[in-house]
């Protein structure tokens, strides 16, 4: 039984309060107590909850942090950087690919010396998408010039967040600070956590206002130039200043943590050493695994083995001297790296530990490195024993047999190699001949003929059943209906999002034809590369041997999230006019990461980052009109569609294919239901999108070579319904019918009417 090995800690001098919360909740809780001025953020698992919890608290008036939903992490880092130059306190949280996307901004922020605090909720950065916890994102942070504080549990997440802002603002530091903890293991597990009972005591510790006396961009009496163009010979001196400040940050942290320990009774020395005083073998681990290993140490000690564990609380600056001292009398240490530095003969930590020992004159301690726990692979105590076994074996043999290896990888069984299950779809089944698109030779207009939907049930579906979407998900009915209108072969690219995740959970794939995934800020660019390679290889005759019966139709599938973060590349692809289709399934939010607002979320709608509370009632700004934005790129064909109007959508799919094969880029948006996050009944999906069309919130229309045509006008059919009739069908908008939200409803109605009127005008005038 793990009873506290060290003596009971002092309880501290400040009044505290116990809560039972997760790491993400504690990061948000600390941020709300600090009451930062600004948080610019973009959702990514597993860090998203930090913004969600802050928004929920904000909706009920518990803090005044201005929460700004960015258009991607690059944007969020920009918002934070700008805000930090303007003299207030700034906060952010991200993970993995999100961190990579903002990476170029990190050295800018540290190099121009503007403090802020960012939480990195560690997750793997990967090719095949993995959203679970390892340290591959953290290792990219090592060279950014940000001091890095580590947290092994939710208590540390809270404590480090309080200390981080004080460290960042210190006159001798003036650097942005990263607080890193393990995705899911720490971010999502609830524990007992001690907190400051009063916000005033937090402010007493960190200072009510940021440390003043440093220039900011809002002081008109003292104009400054931020970020000049700096060549050699000056640049190296800026770097030297930064290097000095970083090492200073180590000293300042050591001072701050002692002040903090006085107040709270919780101490975070540079190194967390567990039973190291007489240890002969040790294991060095970062973050959550560094706690689990302590149970293993206790078990080994009970067996008479002198084991100990080391886990740093800060890795930038790297505590080289402290580590060398801690290992001075250790015979062998296993360093576990939760990310590889491919080709580096060891992960980043082992190589830094080795350098530390060499620098400080220790050539005796044997060092073994194991890469473990990648992509969230659990670290059980049996794994801890295996890491100690490496060190024990070295001690016994007197040398290290295998200095570098992976731990926890498996070879697999030759008998279970992947076998083809389905035959590839036959071209003649996909090319039914039932759908025809002919261009009128005189007018140039397209005449589309489609059969009754019954006949098209013969056509194979492009996606196989067995995918893991929620019951009633609108994505898959919508996509297949669109695909039914396309004859012949499709090569599809799916952006990151629900449709991608639920169809490709390894080793399964529901895609019967060729499919590519790329991260959702870059699908349009990626598919345009595929398209151009097709045409170039075809031109060079390299595809002749395949006897392709026809050209492929290239389709990119994206959610509305992918059209936020990926708007730039989508516009780029449109302006280049590649022969491809971009099809957006719009479910009015980032549903894959837990229903955060997207720019397509309409005004007043409840999401997990536009909560409804005493002082906030859903999303604060209007929905994005993506179809009109894309139409403004002057591509040949833009359309909107819905499964509630199947013939209309089929015809548009057929036209889309014709344009994508003959003229260039097509963009289409289908509105689809997300019962889970719209808080609506599974079975009502089709009716809800139907109501969205009939209320004129989501008009069905096309823009063909610049000419707008409304393909279904509810007014003319006498079917127009009030907006509220649609909103009342969903739990996420039920509050909008309440009298206190009448103003929001009115503004929403006004905006829908205005856009509908503008669309009608365009429909009537081919020049508009």
């Amino acid at each position, binding site marked *: 039984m793990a*009873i506290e090995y060290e003596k009971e800690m002092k309880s501290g001098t400040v009044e505290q309060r116990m809560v039972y919360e997760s790491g993400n909740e504690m990061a948000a809780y600390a941020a709300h107590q600090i009451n930062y001025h600004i948080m610019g953020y973009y959702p990514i698992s597993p860090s998203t909850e930090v913004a969600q919890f802050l928004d929920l608290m904000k909706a009920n008036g518990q803090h005044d942090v201005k929460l700004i939903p960015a258009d991607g992490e690059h944007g969020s880092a920009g918002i934070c950087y700008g805000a930090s130059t303007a003299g207030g306190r700034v906060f952010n949280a991200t993970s993995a690919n999100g961190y990579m996307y903002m990476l170029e901004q990190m050295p800018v922020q540290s190099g121009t010396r503007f403090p802020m605090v960012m939480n990195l909720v560690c997750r793997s950065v990967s090719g095949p998408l993995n959203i679970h916890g390892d340290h591959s994102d953290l290792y990219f942070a090592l060279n950014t010039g940000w001091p890095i504080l580590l947290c092994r549990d939710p208590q540390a997440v809270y404590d480090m967040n309080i200390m981080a802002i004080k460290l960042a603002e210190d006159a001798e530091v003036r650097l942005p600070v990263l607080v890193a903890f393990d995705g*899911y293991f720490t971010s999502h597990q609830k*524990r007992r956590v001690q907190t400051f009972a009063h916000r005033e005591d937090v402010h007493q510790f960190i200072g009510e206002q940021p440390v003043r006396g440093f220039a900011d961009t809002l002081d008109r009496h003292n104009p400054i130039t931020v970020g000049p163009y700096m060549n050699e010979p000056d640049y190296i001196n800026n770097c030297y200043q930064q290097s000095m400040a970083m090492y200073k940050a180590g000293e300042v942290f050591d001072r701050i943590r002692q002040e903090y320990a006085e107040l709270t009774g919780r101490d975070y020395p540079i190194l967390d050493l567990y039973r190291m005083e007489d240890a002969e073998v040790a294991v060095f681990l970062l973050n959550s695994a560094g706690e689990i290993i302590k149970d293993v140490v206790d078990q080994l000690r009970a067996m008479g083995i002198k084991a100990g564990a080391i886990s740093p609380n800060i890795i930038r600056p790297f505590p080289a001297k402290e580590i060398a001292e801690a290992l001075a009398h250790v015979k062998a240490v296993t360093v576990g790296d939760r990310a590889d530095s491919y080709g580096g003969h060891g992960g980043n930590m082992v190589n830094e530990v080795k350098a530390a020992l060499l620098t400080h004159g220790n050539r005796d301690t044997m060092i073994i490195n194991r890469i473990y726990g990648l992509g969230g692979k659990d670290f059980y105590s049996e794994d801890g024993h295996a890491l100690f076994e490496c060190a024990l074996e070295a001690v016994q043999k007197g040398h290290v047999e295998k200095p570098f290896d992976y731990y926890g990888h498996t070879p697999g069984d030759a008998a279970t190699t992947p076998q083809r299950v*389905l035959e590839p779809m036959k071209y003649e089944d996909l090319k039914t001949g039932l759908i025809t698109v002919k261009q009128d030779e005189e007018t140039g207009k397209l005449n589309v003929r489609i059969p009754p939907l019954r006949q098209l049930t013969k056509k194979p*579906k492009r996606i*196989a059943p067995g995918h*893991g979407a929620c019951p*009633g998900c609108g994505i898959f009915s919508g996509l297949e209906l669109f695909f039914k209108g396309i004859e012949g072969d499709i090569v599809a690219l799916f952006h990151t999002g629900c449709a991608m995740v639920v169809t490709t959970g390894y080793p399964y794939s529901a895609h019967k034809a060729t499919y590519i995934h790329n991260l959702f800020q870059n699908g349009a660019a990626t598919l345009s590369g595929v398209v151009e390679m097709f045409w170039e290889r075809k031109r060079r005759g390299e595809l002749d041997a395949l006897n392709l019966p026809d050209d492929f139709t290239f389709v990119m599938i994206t959610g509305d999230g992918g059209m936020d973060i990926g708007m730039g590349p989508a516009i780029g692809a449109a302006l280049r006019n590649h022969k491809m289709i971009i099809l957006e399934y719009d479910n009015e939010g980032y549903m894959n990461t837990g229903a955060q607002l997207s720019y397509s979320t309409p005004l007043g709608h409840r999401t997990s980052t536009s909560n409804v509370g005493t002082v906030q009632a859903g999303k604060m700004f209007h929905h994005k009109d993506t179809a009109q934005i894309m139409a403004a790129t002057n591509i040949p064909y833009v359309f909107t569609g819905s499964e509630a109007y199947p013939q209309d959508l089929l015809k548009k799919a057929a036209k889309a294919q014709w344009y994508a094969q003959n003229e260039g880029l097509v963009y289409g948006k289908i509105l689809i239901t997300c019962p889970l996050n719209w808080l609506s009944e599974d*079975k009502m999906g089709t009716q809800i999108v139907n109501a969205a069309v009939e209320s004129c919130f989501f008009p069905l229309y096309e823009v063909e070579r610049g000419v707008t045509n409304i393909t279904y006008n509810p007014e003319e059919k006498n079917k127009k319904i009030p907006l509220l009739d649609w909103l009342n069908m969903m739990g996420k908008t039920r509050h909008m019918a309440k009298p206190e939200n009448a103003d929001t409803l009115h503004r929403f109605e006004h905006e829908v009417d205005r856009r509908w009127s503008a669309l009608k005008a365009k429909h009537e005038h081919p020049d508009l």
Partner: protein
Amino acid sequence: MVTLPKVNALGFFEIRLESIGGLGANLAGKMLAEAGVNGSGLNGVSFSSYGSEKKGSPVKAHIRFCMPETLIRDTTPVERPHIVGIFHESLHKTTHVTSGIYEDSLVLVNSTKTPEELKEKLCLSGGKIAVVDAIGIALEEKNRVNMAMLGALFRLCDFLDVEQMKSVIRKSLEKKYPNAVQPALNTFQRGYDEVKFQTFAFPEGIELPEPVRWDTPLLGYETQPIGGMVVNPGNSILKDLSISRAGMMPHFLSDKCIHCAACDNVCPDYCFVWEEKPDKKGRPQMFLQGIDYQYCKGCLKCVYACPTDALSSEREEDGYADEHRVPHLFDLAARQ
């Protein structure tokens, strides 16, 4: 001071909830843990299995309780539970729900069956089996399955304070959903009162298997195609998604069907099976044959889309899906 009935070597009493997304097991686990930590002064940790699993997919919630002075370091899932709470009876078809139980562990199942029947169905050689008809109670009380399961779990965790839990339920609901407070409390109470137990002696010589680590994959670095590529796409057809249904399913009456394909247009799971046959005039035409229940998640969109009475919404009964399933005829690759 509260005492835990039993603990493992590290000092933990461990509970694992097995469910599908959408039944509220995550919330039930959270409330159970909070009741132990905030209400009874225990130390504890709780979490769910996280990933990109959606509603209807298998999920687990893990709860560890220990005495206040015990340090919590472990972040791994509960492999050896003292209590397993199974929120969906059919889960055992795809998940080893009782993995790692001890001889004296308690297995609670949401079911209308008897403990004997469940012992058979879950292939248990013995032990203590508890049953509560959580779906039935929830339907009658117009509340959620998780409240009934929570009531039953409280009965099994007699070290926790029932009154404390009721005040948590009251507090968490009264502001937003004041009308839901009484039904939730009734559902909780009925779960507590109506759970039935039976203990079965283990036959001589039977030893319970050690848990198998869940994170050992089928493929490995010698057999996995490079780059994570899937070279046998479409293999999702091998999956059985019938456990995603949370009680309701569509029934198909072919004689009322006009083969309009409205159901096929709205089905997210591609469950409708068609066949080409000659129509009355001898021309080839498509005819709806039925539903492949292996993939049906019970959303019932098709029932709403159907212009006739050919599709209806029904409570799922044991065996109906297997009996009435019309399987897809896929163009399967020849297997060696």
